[in-house]
C-alpha cells in the first residue's frame, strides 16, 4: 500500500478515528510527574504519551561547552524501547539526533538563556508511547516543563502538525494518516506573537492546500496553548 491507496476519510468528511478535518486528538497534561526533576510534565495526546523533565540551570561541564554570555540547552529526544509496535533498540539514532537538534533550536528561541551565563539546562524528552506526531508532543511538553521549572521564557512553544489524506487537508495526523497520508507539516508556534520557531514538511501540497494546513496549525496551536496555560495554573489539564 502506498500514498493515497488507503481510504481514511469518508464522504461526510469523518476520519477513521471519528474526527472532523480540523479536530485535534484529545490532550491531557499533568505536571510534576518526575518528582526528582526541577520541572516536568506528562502529555497525553491521542495515544501518544510523552514525559519531559528539566534539570538546571546547573554548572555546564565539561568547560568547553560553556558559553560566557548565556546558558546552553542540552536537549535529548528519545523513544523508549517499548514505545512503538516493533521494539526500538535503545540508543541514539539519526532520527532522534535530528529531532533533538531542531527541538533545541526551537526552545533556544524562547528560553532567556542570557540570564544564566556559563550554565546548562537539561531538557529530557522521553516518548513512552508513540502514535504519530511525537516530535510535536515532545516540543510542546518540553516548553510546559521548562515553565514548570520556573525557567524564564518569552513564550511557550506549541507544536502541531497538519497534513493531507486522500486529497483532504486535515489537522493533527494520527498513526494511519501519518503512514498512508500524502503530506505532513509540523510547526512550532509561539502563541502570543504568532511567530514560528520550528518548521518541517514532507509530502506534496498545492499552494492552496499548504495555506489550509498552515491555518489549521495556527488555530490548533491557540487551543492547545489554552490547555497548557490551564495545566500550569492547576497542575493538570483537564482538571
Amino acid at each position, binding site marked *: 500500500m502506498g500514498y493515497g491507496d488507503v481510504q481514511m476519510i469518508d464522504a461526510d468528511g469523518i476520519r477513521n478515528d471519528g474526527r472532523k478535518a480540523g479536530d485535534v486528538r484529545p490532550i491531557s497534561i499533568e505536571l510534576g510527574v518526575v518528582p526528582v526533576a526541577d520541572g516536568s510534565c506528562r502529555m497525553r495526546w491521542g495515544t501518544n504519551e510523552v514525559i519531559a523533565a528539566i534539570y538546571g540551570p546547573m554548572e555546564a561541564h565539561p568547560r568547553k561547552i560553556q558559553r560566557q554570555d548565556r546558558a546552553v540547552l542540552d536537549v535529548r529526544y528519545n523513544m523508549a524501547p517499548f514505545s512503538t*509496535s516493533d521494539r526500538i533498540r535503545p540508543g541514539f539514532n539519526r532520527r532522534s539526533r535530528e529531532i533533538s537538534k531542531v527541538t533545541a533550536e526551537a526552545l533556544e528561541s524562547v528560553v532567556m538563556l542570557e540570564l544564566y551565563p556559563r550554565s546548562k539546562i537539561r531538557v*529530557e524528552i522521553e516518548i513512552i508511547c508513540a502514535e504519530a506526531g511525537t516530535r510535536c508532543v515532545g516540543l510542546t511538553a518540553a516548553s510546559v516543563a521548562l515553565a514548570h521549572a520556573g525557567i524564564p521564557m518569552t513564550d511557550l512553544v506549541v507544536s502541531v502538525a497538519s497534513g493531507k489524506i486522500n486529497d483532504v487537508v486535515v489537522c493533527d495526523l494520527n498513526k494511519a494518516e501519518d503512514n498512508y497520508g500524502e503530506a505532513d507539516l509540523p510547526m512550532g508556534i509561539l502563541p502570543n506573537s504568532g511567530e514560528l520557531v520550528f518548521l518541517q514538511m514532507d509530502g506534496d501540497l498545492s499552494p492552496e492546500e499548504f495555506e489550509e494546513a498552515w491555518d489549521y496549525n495556527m488555530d490548533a496551536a491557540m487551543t492547545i496553548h489554552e490547555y497548557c496555560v490551564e495545566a500550569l495554573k492547576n497542575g493538570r489539564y483537564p482538571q
Partner: protein
Amino acid sequence: MSIPLVPQLLRSHLKELADNDQRLDNRSQFEGRDVEIEVGILGNAEGSARVRMGDTIVLAGVKFQTMTPYPDRPNEGGLMCMAEVRPVSGRQHEAGPPSAESIELSRVVDRGIRESGCIDTSDLCIIPGEKAWQVILDLFAVSDDGNLFDAFALAGITALRNATIPQEKFELGEDRPLIVSKTPIMCSYQRVGGRFIFDANGREELGGDERIHITLGEDNHVHSLQKGLKGAFTAAEFTELMEEARKKGQELRNMINTLEGVN
C-alpha cells in the same frame, strides 16, 4: 529536588539518626516506602507495569520478537531483560553509554527473573530449530529516588505476568497469555549509618555503604544474590536480612497476586 548534601556531612547525619534508630523520612529500619503498582499502562507494549515507591518511579514494558533458537536448544525461545537508567530520571544520571552501575543493575534484575525459571522457554517454541519467541523485558527509570533495583524487579515480574503473546500480529494463531509460573521478588538492603536498612531512598544511597540484594521465589527459594559497593558484612547480619526478605517478599508477592490484569 534539592542539590545533594556533601556526602561526608550527610554520612555523619545518617550515623546520628541510625544511632537513635531513626531514618531521614521517619521510617523504621526495615520499613519500605508505600508501593503502588499499575498494570497494562503502555498502549504499544504487550505487557506493562508502572511501579512507584515514594519518589522512585519506573516502567516495565514487554515486547515479543521471533528468533532462531540456539543450536544447542532447538526447542526453546529466549528471555532478554534490559534496564535503562536514562538522564530523565535524575540529575546524577548523565547521557552516554551505560555506566558500570546501571549494567550491574540490569544484570542483577535479569538474573533474579531468569534464574527463577518463571518463564518456561520451551513454551516459546514455534517451529523446533527454526522459530521461537523472544520475550524482551525493557525496564525504564522515570524518576530515581533510590532503590531502582527493587522497583525494576517488581515492575519487571508484574509486566511479564501482564503479557500477551501477540500471535495474531505475527499470523501465528490467536493471542495467548504468556505463562509465568513463579513470582520472584527482590529485596534490597543497604548499610546506612552502620546498620542495614530496607529500601534506601536517594539520600540514604548517597551516604550509604555496601548493599545486598536478595531475590526469593515462592517457598523462599533463593534465585539471585548480589553484594555491591565497598564494605564487609557478617553472617549474622545476612541471616537477619534473609529473614526480613522472606517476610517482605511474600507481602509484595501477595500484592501482585491480587492485582487486576495479571495472569
